[in-house]
């Protein structure tokens, strides 16, 4: 167990910079999640830490020691692969023992550590099975036990849950988190699933186009997204295009006048609003932004309702209502009151992050 530092880590293939100048510090025992859409460079970053990809420039330090030029088999990183990558010709116990054999661990000690690792993932009764005789979830746990058995400095998880079905995924991620906490393992998980990221992470790194967009804890990312991309990727937002007209005033391209609390320079801007921060009906009148609009679409999500409300020719806002007994589902085409506090709006200069993820 050790800390991890990435210093200006960069990987280019020709002119294509897949990872650009990534620097971050992961404290000992911290659970860090690299989050981003596919092709954002998160997996390449992880593979550089594991040693499978050679960085074009920059350094990787584990526990303060520079390991940038070490081959993968000399780094003490335990990795869980997306497809588990179990050795098909070895039994579960042999799979878990492999790393210990490579470390020339004495055989009595080996047997004990294999047993401990399998007990940790509750698979000690299946030690004699072959990977092909197991379910996806069990294979995943074998992969985890195999990575844990070597007592790695850093645990690397490459989308470890993406091949599991939704129900199992929720269980396993809680398990992984508990295990990580119990063992105090410095862990890096790569995922594109923000819900997964938010459940397990101490801190998150949002990446896009090879760059780090924002590093922070969950609240930072959700409440204060650094740019439009983060605002759309973490949670959901309705985006309204327009420009800053003056002190605390935003005008949308279709002419809506909206109060805003945060100041950015005059000029084109995007206003982002979280669906759950909007209010509908009479309670909307208490907000300092309140407007009327037509219900365009309603989607019933079980615990919540999403109401799409059109406010202008180019402006549409989604309101999320929690599905309580008192909630009356609005009808399509109905004219409704909608409102949000000016402090709930997030403002971004329009030239920033425009090419990124689609908004709502």
């Amino acid at each position, binding site marked *: 167990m050790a800390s991890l530092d990435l210093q200006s880590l960069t990987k280019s293939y020709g002119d294509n910079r897949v990872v650009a100048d990534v620097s971050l510090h992961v404290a000992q025992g911290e659970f860090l999640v690299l989050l981003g859409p596919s092709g954002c460079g998160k997996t390449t970053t992880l593979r550089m830490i594991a040693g499978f990809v050679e960085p074009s420039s920059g350094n990787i330090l584990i526990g303060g020691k520079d390991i940038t030029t070490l*081959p993968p088999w000399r780094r003490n990183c335990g990795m869980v692969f997306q497809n588990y*990558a179990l*050795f098909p*010709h070895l039994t579960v116990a042999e799979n878990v023992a492999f790393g210990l054999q490579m470390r020339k661990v004495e055989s009595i000690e080996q047997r004990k550590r294999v047993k401990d690792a399998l007990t940790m993932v509750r698979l000690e009764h299946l030690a004699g099975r072959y990977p092909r005789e197991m379910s996806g979830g069990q294979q995943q746990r074998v992969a985890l036990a*195999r990575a844990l058995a*070597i007592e790695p400095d850093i645990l690397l998880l490459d989308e470890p849950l993406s091949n599991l079905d939704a129900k199992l995924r929720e269980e396993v991620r809680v398990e992984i988190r508990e295990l990580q906490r119990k063992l105090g393992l410095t862990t890096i998980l790569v995922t594109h699933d923000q819900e997964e990221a938010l459940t397990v992470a101490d801190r998150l790194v949002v990446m896009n186009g090879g760059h780090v967009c924002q590093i922070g804890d969950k609240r930072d990312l959700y409440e204060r997204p650094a740019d439009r991309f983060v605002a759309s990727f973490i949670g959901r937002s309705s985006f309204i295009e327009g420009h800053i007209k003056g002190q605390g005033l935003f005008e949308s391209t279709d002419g809506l006048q909206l109060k805003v609390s945060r100041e950015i320079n005059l000029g084109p801007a995007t206003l982002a609003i979280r669906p759950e921060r909007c209010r509908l009906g009479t309670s909307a009148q208490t907000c300092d932004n309140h407007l009327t609009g037509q219900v365009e679409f309603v989607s019933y999500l079980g615990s919540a309702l999403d109401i799409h409300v059109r406010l202008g020719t180019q402006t549409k806002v989604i309101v999320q209502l929690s599905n309580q007994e008192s909630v009356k589902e609005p009808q399509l085409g109905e004219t409704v009151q909608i409102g949000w506090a000016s402090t709930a709006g997030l403002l971004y200069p329009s030239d920033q992050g425009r090419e990124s993820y689609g908004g709502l």
Partner: protein
Amino acid sequence: MAYSRMPREGLIGRILLNGAAALAMVYILLPLFFVFWLSVFNQEIPSFPPDGYSLRWFSALAEYREFASGFILSLQVGVIATFVGLVLGLPAALVIVRSQINGRGFFNSLLLAPMVVPGVVLGTALYVFQIEAEIATDLPLMGSFLGLVIAHSLIVVPWTVRLICANLVGIDRTIEEAAYNLGAGPITTFFKITLPMIRPGLVAATLFGFVASFGNLEMSLFLVGPGRTTLPIAILQYLEWKIDPTVAAASVLQIALIALALLITDHYVKLSRVV
């Protein structure tokens, strides 16, 4: 609704499929059946119906020394050529499937060429080459055991390269990465992880390589020397003078041997996974 229609359509389909399969089976097995039958005919000139049945051709087989020595030579050449084919084929397959070097496609076609070139052409070419080489170097190549082994290795290589390649393509590289990650260097990873994973391909390569060598007639015809004939050539030579069921008996033994090899192999690696 779909379900209620299923059984009848399924039934017709099944009858057609099974019928076609049965027809193919008969077509393939019928000649084998006749060979078996013929080998136990009593009379010297095969005619129908047989006079009676006897196993005397099998004992004649043992007495006819050319068959025994041909069998041993074929076995020796086959085993050595298969080994050479594996030793050459495995690294070649690794380069073809894994490396990024230019001309891999050309290299691949080149190694498969002996399978495409007709045996007679190959035999003639090697014959001329061995004569020229013998003249140039004074080494007794022509008609030698070494010359035969080299030639047979040539026809084994396409099989080993092709079958190992096919297996290697399907191997998930991340499994090797997992081995690196756990502390195994490239050499350890190759022997402990990669090699066991391509075992089905290696077994298939060995089997088909050996059968290709063991049964080869056309190419070998050009390369054998006096007193040194392989089994297929011994059979051919025998047929020039006699048509008694000894040849059928020899074939039966050959078929039994290959069938045995297949069964033993199947016990260790399921052939249905290999081919």
